């Protein structure tokens, strides 16, 4: 495990990107950041600007309009960046996959590292996913 990976995984700045989500996943993302789960223990904090992000949390079924913005935001993030699809909509399109404005799942627009299914996923599920991602990055 390199020093850079160690430093990076000890201090993940999360950036929350909501693409036409129904808001349930957004609320669960905020729940995961509340004192009850206290993610700052592991160095995970929420940032306002994508330029300082190490972890993109994507919520919702990205449609024709928001997919363009998704691509742009992904290219604005300084690499390396971990992308997590939060919720069934971000993972597969879920009930919106036959909608008129839905084209493709998120991972056909940008590379996704971890999928967190659920409608909405529990904060515990998100924490488990991030822990697994960190272990994978560290080569464990």
């Amino acid at each position: 495990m390199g020093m850079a990976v160690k430093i990076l995984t000890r201090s993940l700045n999360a950036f929350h990107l909501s693409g036409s989500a129904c808001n349930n996943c957004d609320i669960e993302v905020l729940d995961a950041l509340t004192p009850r789960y206290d993610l700052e223990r592991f160095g995970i904090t929420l940032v306002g600007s994508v330029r300082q992000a190490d972890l993109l949390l994507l919520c919702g079924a990205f449609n024709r309009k928001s997919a363009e913005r998704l691509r742009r935001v992904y290219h604005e993030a300084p690499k390396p960046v971990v992308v997590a699809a939060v919720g069934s909509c971000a993972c597969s399109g879920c009930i919106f996959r036959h909608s008129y404005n839905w084209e493709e799942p998120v991972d056909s627009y940008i590379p996704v590292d971890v999928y967190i299914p659920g409608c909405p996923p529990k904060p515990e599920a998100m924490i488990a996913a991030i822990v697994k991602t960190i272990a994978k990055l560290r080569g464990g």
Partner: protein
Amino acid sequence: MTYPGILIQALVFPGLAFSAAAGLFLSWVDRKVTARVQMRQGPPLLQPFYDVAKYFVKETCIPSGATPAVFWAAPLVGLAGATTASTMIGGSLLDPSRGYVGDLIVVIYLLVLPSLAVILGAFSSGNPLASLGGSREMKLLLAYELPFVLALAVPILNAGSIRLGDLAVTVTVARPSGVLALLVALICIQGKLGLVPFDLPEAESELTGGALIEYSGAPMGIFRLTRTMLLYVLPLFLVSAFCGPAAAGGALRGLICLVLLVVSVTLIRNTAPRLRIDQAVKFFWGPVSVVALAALALQAGGW
């Protein structure tokens, strides 16, 4: 003094390396106290170090609308200001007879540099939200400098000198005027540090990071490091101006004052909501300046 000696002082002790380490530790204290206020566990001891170091292993994005030279120079200017100020303040505490007449005024100017760097960086990044943050930082700077200098006039009058070393051996905080002036200065460093209730240049809810919105990678890391150093340098400056830490047997009092100041800053930021920019300017130019003037009048009256 020889040039290598000056370099070691500026880069190792009491300058860059030492004040960065002290700042990282105090920033951990700040975050841990915050966590305890919110009934959380809080981050581990090395978390502030990882947070700063992380930016140096990440990619640096320079926005296409930015002016690259200023974009890169701004954080360095801020870091240089904080480093020089910490070297001068620390040096005058180690040996109060050193320094020159007027070095206090130089330090006051040097402590403006980090805010100036944020303004420069914000405007050079070419982002409208960053410009808003930069202009707020500028107004805030104009607002808190007046009461800050007025408050510092109290220990200057008390010691009868504008040399850091003379202030460092005079205990001003034992007088009523000194207590008032220290309170005013504490509120002013809250603004200088850009913490709640004066975090409006960075306003996460409406400016999403504000002045530093376009910064990433190494320049962002330098800004973070400067901010972290200021958490040590600004309280240390107040301690050396008000608490007489270099007087005989004053080292322990100075240390206690330093920790108390940092914890007060943390508690203020955890219990206050953010002010609007007009409220902040009115607050500094109104009540805070009046209290500073009252402290000055008390001092002139011999209290």
